[in-house]
C-alpha cells in the first residue's frame, strides 16, 4: 500500500514537473550506443536530452569486443540501444541476454542499400566458416563509411528518439536536420577530394576490408589482407597474393587502421615498396585529442591522409 502511494506520488511529481518546468528537470533519455561512431551521431541528434553510454569506445574494435558486466548494467538501465546491425556487433545477443535488458534495440542500417563484400573476401569467410562469435555472411556491415548512409543512420536515430521521447521530437528533428546539413557538406568535400586524384591512382591498401561503402560511393579502390573482420588472420598465401596484386595494380598508398595491429601492413609495405601513408580511421573514432574525435573529423582525416599520400601533402 505504502509502495503504491509512493509510486503515485512520484508519478504525480514527474507529471507536474514535466508540465510546469519542461525539459530542464526531466531525466535524460538513457541511450546505449554500440560503438563510438554511432555514439557521435546520437549525441548530435539528442543533444542534452539524451545520456549516451558507448560500449566500444574510441580506437576500439567492435569485431572482437568482449562485453563486460558493467556494459550489462548500462544495457539494463537503457531505454534505447542503438546498433549498426548487419551482424556488425557479434557480441550483442549475449549482452542482451546477460543484461535482461528491456530496451528497444534499433538497427541504424535499416533503409540503407546493403552491399556485398568483395567476392574474394566473401569466399574466404565462407571457406573458414565465419569467425569466432559471429558470421558476417556476404553483407558488408560498414555502411557508415559512406556519408550518404550516415544521413540514414541520423534519420533512424531521430525517429527512435521521437518514439521513445515524443516531447523532445521537435528538438531531435531540428538537431538531425542541422547535423544532416553538415553531413551534406562533408559528402561534397569527400567527392571533391577523390575527384582531385587521377583515376589510375585511386587504389590503396588498408588492414581489413572496412571501406567497401566508401569505395562504392566515391570510387576509390581498397585492397585489404585481413578480409571482413579484424578477427580473421590472413594466411601467408593470402598476403603473398595481395603483395602480387599490389605490384600489378600499382597501389598508390598503403594505410594502417586505428583498430588494427599495424604489423601486417608494415610487412606488406616492405615487400611492395609502397610506403605507409598514415592511419585511416575505420570502425572507431579516435580519442578526444586525436584527429578523428567525431565522425566528420574521421572522414576529413581519412580523405586528407589518402589525398596526401597519393598526391603528396
Amino acid at each position, binding site marked *: 500500500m505504502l509502495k503504491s502511494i509512493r509510486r503515485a506520488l512520484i508519478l504525480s511529481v514527474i507529471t507536474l514537473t514535466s508540465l510546469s518546468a519542461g525539459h530542464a528537470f526531466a531525466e535524460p533519455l538513457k541511450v546505449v550506443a554500440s560503438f563510438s561512431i554511432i555514439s557521435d551521431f546520437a549525441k548530435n541528434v539528442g543533444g542534452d536530452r539524451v545520456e549516451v553510454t558507448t560500449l566500444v569506445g574510441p580506437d576500439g574494435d567492435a569485431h572482437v569486443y568482449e*562485453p563486460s558486466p558493467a556494459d550489462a548494467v548500462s544495457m539494463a538501465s537503457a531505454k534505447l540501444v542503438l546498433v549498426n546491425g548487419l551482424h556488425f556487433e557479434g557480441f550483442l545477443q549475449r549482452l542482451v541476454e546477460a543484461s535482461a535488458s528491456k530496451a528497444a534495440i534499433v538497427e541504424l542500417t535499416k533503409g540503407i542499400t546493403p552491399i556485398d563484400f568483395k567476392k574474394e573476401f566473401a569466399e574466404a569467410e565462407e571457406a573458414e566458416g565465419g569467425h569466432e562469435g559471429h558470421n558476417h555472411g556476404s553483407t558488408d556491415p560498414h555502411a557508415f563509411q559512406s556519408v550518404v548512409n550516415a544521413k540514414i543512420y541520423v534519420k533512424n536515430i531521430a525517429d527512435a528518439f521521437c518514439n521513445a521521447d515524443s516531447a523532445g521530437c521537435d528538438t531531435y528533428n531540428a538537431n538531425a536536420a542541422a547535423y544532416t546539413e553538415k553531413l551534406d557538406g562533408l559528402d561534397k568535400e569527400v567527392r571533391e577530394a577523390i575527384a582531385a586524384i587521377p583515376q589510375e591512382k585511386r587504389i590503396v591498401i588498408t588492414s581489413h576490408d572496412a571501406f567497401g561503402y566508401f569505395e562504392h560511393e566515391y570510387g576509390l579502390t581498397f585492397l585489404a589482407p585481413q578480409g571482413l573482420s579484424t578477427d580473421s588472420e590472413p594466411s601467408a598465401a593470402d598476403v603473398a597474393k595481395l603483395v602480387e596484386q599490389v605490384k600489378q595494380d600499382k597501389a598508390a598508398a598503403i594505410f594502417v587502421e586505428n583498430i588494427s595491429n599495424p604489423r601486417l601492413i608494415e610487412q606488406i609495405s616492405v615487400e611492395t615498396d609502397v610506403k605507409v601513408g598514415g592511419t585511416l580511421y575505420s570502425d572507431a573514432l579516435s580519442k578526444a585529442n586525436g584527429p578523428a574525435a567525431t565522425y566528420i573529423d574521421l572522414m576529413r582525416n581519412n580523405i586528407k591522409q589518402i589525398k596526401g599520400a597519393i598526391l603528396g601533402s
Partner: protein
Amino acid sequence: MKRLLAAASIAVLAAGMATTSSFAEEKTAWRLFVSDHGEPVINVVDALTGNKIDTLPLKGPASLYRSASGRIVFAVQGKADMVSAASTGITFEDHGDHGDIEITAPRLTGTEIAGTKPSHFVEHDGEFALFFDGEGVARILDEKKALDGETSVREVKAEAPHHGVAAVFGDYVLLSEPNKEKPDELPVGIRVVDSAGKQVGDIRACPDLHGEATSGKLMVFACASGILLVRDADQGPSIEHIAYPTSLPSGKATTLLGGKGLQYFLGNYGADRLVLIDPSANDMFRLVELPTRRVHFAVDPIRPRFAYAFTEDGQLHQVDIVAGRLAQSVKLTDPYSMDGHWSDPRPRIAVAGDRIVVTDPLKSQLHLVDATSFAKTGDISLTGKPFNIVAVGGSGETHATE
C-alpha cells in the same frame, strides 16, 4: 589451395547427390569427464542419460582440464608425475550459418607428458602450457598434437623449480619468476620470454603469484598486492599491475576464473568470499559474501550472467555477475568441512548445457541442478569418490545419408 579444396568438396557433393539424399538432423550431446579422488581413472558419463560411456585408465588420480574447443581433456596426475590427454569424442565444426557436431567414442590419445610435479595448466592462443613444479619447466603443445597422440613439446624453463605457471601469449611466453631466496614460496613476478627464450623487459612484480585466468582478450594473474592485467599490444604483451583498493578488507585472490561471454574474472578472496573483477568498470573489484566457507566455484559458459559457488554447508549458489550478489541457492549435499587437507575429497562443479553438475565424492554421486529453475532434478551414481569434473558438449547438425 582453399579454392581447390572447395572445388573438390563441391565435386564430391555433386557425386553424392547423384546417388543418395542427405539430410541434417539437430543433435545434442553432453559428456561428463569425472576423475576419482583415489583411483587412477576418468569416468566418462553421458550427461543427458546418466549412463556411463567408458572408464579411461590413468597413472594416478587426476585433476581435469578441458580445452576451449572441448575436443580434449587433460588429466594432470600430480602423484604420478604425468599429464595425459583424452579425446572427448565431441567435435564441432563451424559452417557459418550452422555448426556440425561429430560424436565418436572418448579415448586416451596416447599423448603423455611426463615431468616432476605437474601443476598448473593454462590454455591461451591455441596452445597448452603445462607447468612442472619439480623442474621449473613449462611444456607446451597444441591441440592437434594432443589429438594425434604426439608427445613432442617445446620447453620454456624458469630459473629454478617452484610452484609456478606459464602461459603462451602470441609469440611470447609469460613465465612465473621464482622467489630466489625462498624457492619453496610462491613466485614473485612474471618474466616475458620471446620465441628464442630471451627475456623481454624487466620482471613484472607480482608477490605471491598464484592464480591465472583469461577472459576475452584479457589475461590476469593474481598477486598478494592486486592483479597483473595483460593485454595484447603492438609490440607484445602489455602488463599492468592494479593494486587492490584500500576499501577492500585484507585479503588476496589465489584462484581465478575467466568469464565466458562477458569479460570479467571471478576469484576467491578470503575463505567465505568471492571477488568479481571487471577491468572495464570504475568499481573494478566487488566482493560477494558467501554464507559459509567456499568449497569450489565455476563460471557458466552458456549463461554469461551467472557463476556458481559451492559452500561447506552443502549449498550450491547462483552468483549474479551483473548484480554482484547471490541470486539463488539450493541444498545438495551433507556438509563438507573445509577443515583438514586442502585436497580432501569435496564437491566440484561443472556446467553441461542446461544442467549444473556437482560431484559428491563421499556419497559416490553426481547431483544435477536445472540451470534455469535452479532446482535439483536428479542424481547420477558412480563408484568410488567422484571428484574433479569437466563437461563438454553442445548442439549441432549431423548430416546422415539414406
